[in-house]
């Protein structure tokens, strides 16, 4: 129905809180809400939602192995690898697994068919539900850096007839792009500090490059100045919600609870946020 990404230029802005509260606020009115935790390096939506997992699956990527008896050390594989994962030296091909994105180009293009692929595990995806809310998430193995393929695996769980809320990783690099691309709308969560503003600027450039309509939620809106709002006005980004710092909210957060489950007013506000998004979203034509 709608794929809605929640992102932020940096961590710790309250992105997950917004994602979780938005999902829970919609639950009474809709039967088809799901939350997908794509912040696979630091997944924490499950701490708030405490879902029961029904499915768990290991995710890996195909990485190359070279048969040195067949290899002529022509260097072709290294040329085609965009990620510097292969180096051909004299009579040895060095494979840097941790840099390999599993794209398959090297195996496909090796003229001697000297490359085979094997599966290198990078993480796990899990799915289940928390009451009426459907939940899915990706969990990167400790020390692992290759998150985009895992994020894509989480996104494969998206059900097309659902309101799918996607908790994207923080930042503006590859993993975020994997999480937000293909979504219908991107909600950017920010804080009214100079750093927050700088990160918001980077994040908004990223979504506009991807051609995604976007809106902003300003968290702890009463703690800084109004530069964030001015920026949004200037950049043509609608500010859909301002969340003032609130003791109750902070306390609930610390206990790992969602504010909308305790407070009617906040439920109303998060529902209004959703209407703001759907009213704001560019009509997506689906073939």
């Amino acid at each position, binding site marked *: 129905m709608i794929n809605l990404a929640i992102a932020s230029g940096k961590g710790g802005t309250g992105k997950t809180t917004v994602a979780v509260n938005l999902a829970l606020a919609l639950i009474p009115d809709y039967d088809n809400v799901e939350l997908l935790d794509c912040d696979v390096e630091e997944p924490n939506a499950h701490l708030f939602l405490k879902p029961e997992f029904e499915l768990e699956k290991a995710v890996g990527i195909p990485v190359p192995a070279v048969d040195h008896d067949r290899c002529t050390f022509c260097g072709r594989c290294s040329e085609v690898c965009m990620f*510097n994962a292969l*180096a051909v*030296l004299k009579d*040895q091909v*060095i494979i*840097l697994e941790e*840099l390999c994105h599993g794209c398959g180009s090297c195996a496909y293009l090796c003229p001697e068919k000297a490359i085979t692929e094997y599966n290198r595990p990078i993480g796990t995806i899990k799915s289940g539900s928390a009451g009426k809310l459907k939940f899915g998430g990706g969990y990167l193995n400790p020390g692992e850096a290759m998150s985009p393929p895992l994020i894509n695996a989480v996104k494969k769980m998206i059900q097309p007839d659902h309101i799918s809320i996607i908790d994207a990783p923080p930042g503006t690099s590859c993993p975020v792009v994997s999480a937000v691309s293909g979504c219908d709308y991107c909600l950017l969560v920010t804080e009214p500090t100079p750093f927050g503003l700088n990160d918001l600027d980077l994040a908004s450039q990223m979504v506009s490059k991807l051609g995604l309509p976007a809106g902003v939620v300003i968290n702890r809106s009463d703690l800084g100045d109004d530069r964030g709002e001015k920026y949004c006005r200037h950049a043509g980004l609608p500010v859909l919600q301002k969340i003032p710092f609130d003791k109750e909210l902070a306390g609930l957060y610390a206990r790992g609870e969602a504010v909308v489950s305790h407070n009617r007013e906040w439920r109303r506000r998060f529902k209004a946020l959703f209407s703001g998004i759907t009213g704001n979203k560019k009509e997506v034509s689906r073939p």
Partner: protein
Amino acid sequence: MKLAISAQGEGLNAQTDQRFGRCPYFVLVDSESGELLESVRNESAGAAGGAGPQSAQLLSHRGVEAVLTGNVGPKAAHALKAGRIKIYTGVEGSVCAAVQKFNENKLIAVSEATTSAHSGMQKGRQR
């Protein structure tokens, strides 16, 4: 012997660079004649990862037999070993001076990494 010196620029007068994988240039010099053979731009200097092994590959393709540099990470050392390229550290000053020190046996021959993974990257970022 065909030497490669990690450098900040081109030619014999360029300053040497302490970082093996992330130096902007490799200056190739013939140790016997002291002659400049070539200055090669290090395309992988700014790569997100794998700069060390890529640099080793670059030098291996050019038939380099030894590198003179400051620090070598574990992956670069492994790749250089695979390319049968000897590693000498302790360069300072110009490329010329490094070659001279090499000829006087004043550089340190190493077979293992002299620094941890990615440290060249951090230094690069601080600049």
